[in-house]
């Protein structure tokens, strides 16, 4: 009876995992598939998946107009990297301070950090645009970095604060008995053992910055255009080049997927941590 139940239980788990894997990888598979199909094969219903429909022309087209996508990728890399680095450099100490130090009104500060996140983007877009244009920042990467930082920093602070609070106090107490100041404890004990979580938060911030479309559309024209805008450029007024758009999208998500695959163990540990024995 117990054996039968456990077989049923295992079957249930396997089934759930299969559904999850399909849901997670389906869009990516469809993206890759669409990027190598001819426009006609792609838009016919059902899509024509015969071998003759497959082509690399979409990629060749994208590469031939590579100047624009290339520049967008470089822009996105710069914006996402700086956003991520700043979010971690500023967010981690703030999160640690809010988690562990006796700070007056820590609760209010945390709530304000979160409140900044709560405004719908459209509400702040217009005042932000006016301010940025008065400062001469429109169509600059600096502006995108600042904007993305404003909504990545609160998330990084909240996520890392939660992680730091879950760290066993013992290590920090041991460091205090060893004579470490709060800053030394943070830099020499807490940060090194928090690397997986910092990575996880960093990947999250990077993806957010890499994928952002709305503010990039409003705040940039040509010079600072990022990848999502470059991809959307394949949708014209009269015709949408689905195949090329998908090829461009495939190229643009490649770094993220690669990064995630390479760092998957670190990211998983980051999410699973808090079980650290101390």
């Amino acid at each position: 009876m117990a054996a039968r139940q456990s077989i049923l239980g295992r079957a249930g788990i396997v089934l759930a995992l299969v559904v999850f894997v399909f849901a997670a990888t389906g869009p990516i598979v469809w993206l890759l598939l669409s990027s190598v199909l001819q426009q006609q094969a792609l838009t016919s219903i059902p899509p024509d998946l015969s071998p003759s429909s497959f082509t690399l022309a979409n990629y060749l087209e994208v590469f031939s107009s590579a100047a624009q996508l290339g520049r967008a990728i470089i822009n996105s890399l710069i914006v996402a990297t700086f956003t991520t680095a700043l979010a971690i450099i500023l967010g981690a100490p703030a999160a640690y301070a809010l988690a562990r130090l006796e700070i007056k009104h820590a609760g209010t500060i945390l709530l304000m950090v979160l409140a900044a996140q709560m405004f719908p983007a459209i509400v702040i877009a217009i005042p932000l645009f006016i301010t940025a244009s008065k400062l001469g920042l429109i169509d600059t990467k600096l502006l995108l970095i600042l904007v993305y930082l404003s909504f990545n920093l609160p998330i990084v602070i909240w996520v890392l604060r939660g992680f730091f609070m879950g760290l066993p106090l013992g290590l920090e107490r041991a460091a205090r008995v060893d004579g470490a100041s709060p800053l030394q404890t943070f830099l020499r004990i807490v940060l090194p053992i928090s690397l997986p979580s910092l990575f996880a938060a960093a990947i999250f911030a990077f993806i957010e910055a890499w994928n952002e479309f709305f503010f990039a559309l409003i705040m940039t024209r040509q010079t600072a255009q990022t990848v999502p805008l470059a991809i959307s450029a394949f949708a014209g007024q009269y015709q949408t080049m689905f195949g090329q758009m998908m090829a461009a999208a495939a190229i643009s998500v490649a770094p993220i997927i690669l990064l995630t695959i390479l760092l998957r163990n670190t990211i998983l540990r980051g999410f699973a941590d808090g079980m650290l024995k101390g």
Partner: protein
Amino acid sequence: MPSIELIDINKSYGAVHVCKGINLTIADREFVTLLGSSGCGKTTTLNMIAGLDDPTSGDILMDGRRVNDLEPVGRDVAMVFQNYALYPHMTVAGNMGFNLRLRNFSPAEIHERVGAAASALDLSHVLDRYPSQLSGGQQQRVAIGRAIVRHPKVFLFDEPFSNLDAALRNRMRAEVKELHLRLGVTSIFVTHDQEEALSISDRVAIMRNGSVEQFGTPEDVYADPETVEVARFIGTPQVEILECVIDRSNGSNTVLRCGSASLPITARQAVALGTRTEKVLVTIRPEYVTIGGQGTSATIRDVQPTGPSTLVKLGWEGSAIMARLNGIVRLTVGETAHFSIDPMQLMLFDNESGRRIKTKS
């Protein structure tokens, strides 16, 4: 090495009063254990001595100097934590030398001190390993090593052996005792394990509900408990507490009536009881109860052979008493037995306060 004084220490977390007016004086080079069940305030007390927690009120003195406002490093204390608290990203050598690096010792001196501590603790061959690559006993020794490389004035141990198996615990106990004899550093040890406390300490402070119930040598707290709670807490098996009335009906021969049983007391105890009429609480250590001969009749409720001795629980009409008999003794549960006690060894306590009714010697 300093003496340590706790003067009327109170600690509250909001409405929770964890430590209630603790007074302790620990002599230079003494090994003192704070013993109590979980939640009695012993670890909080240790943390306040370490400087990791601030008392709500009261003073902590080291060598007569008030240290309330000093950080742990200013008090020059070293601490061994319950869960080792080793830095997982540092090697054994890194863990042991961390506090020396913070104090800008030269690499040569760090190397020398860590090497000396490692060889004393049999850790020389694992200096390059990470904590996760060590056994529990080795991890605990690294934690001790980290404390001794500093040559601190005070050692604090917070239930350091509670995660180790029994055999290892005994060995580590002996090592800590040996270390204390060798280094002569004032040491405070927290544990809930009475056997551990009694076996390694010069004196034991028994804590209950945030207060110190008794502070004395292991012999004192076992043989001469000041409260019924200490009598109950110290000693294995736990003693049974009898509620008895004082019977003076037989002229000068006062006895205690405990249910249907009647226990003789000494003349001195009768004097100590004075003119009391209310009930008293009575107990006796199992080794002073003998079975056989005439004595009081009771039913054998439980028999536990432990090897060198056999523990027998005897019961009668709502009361029970434990006896410890030498060697393996074959007795049958449910049978009637006769027991007698050594009245000199009876311990009498006030029914209200639980405090010992002392006989004058």
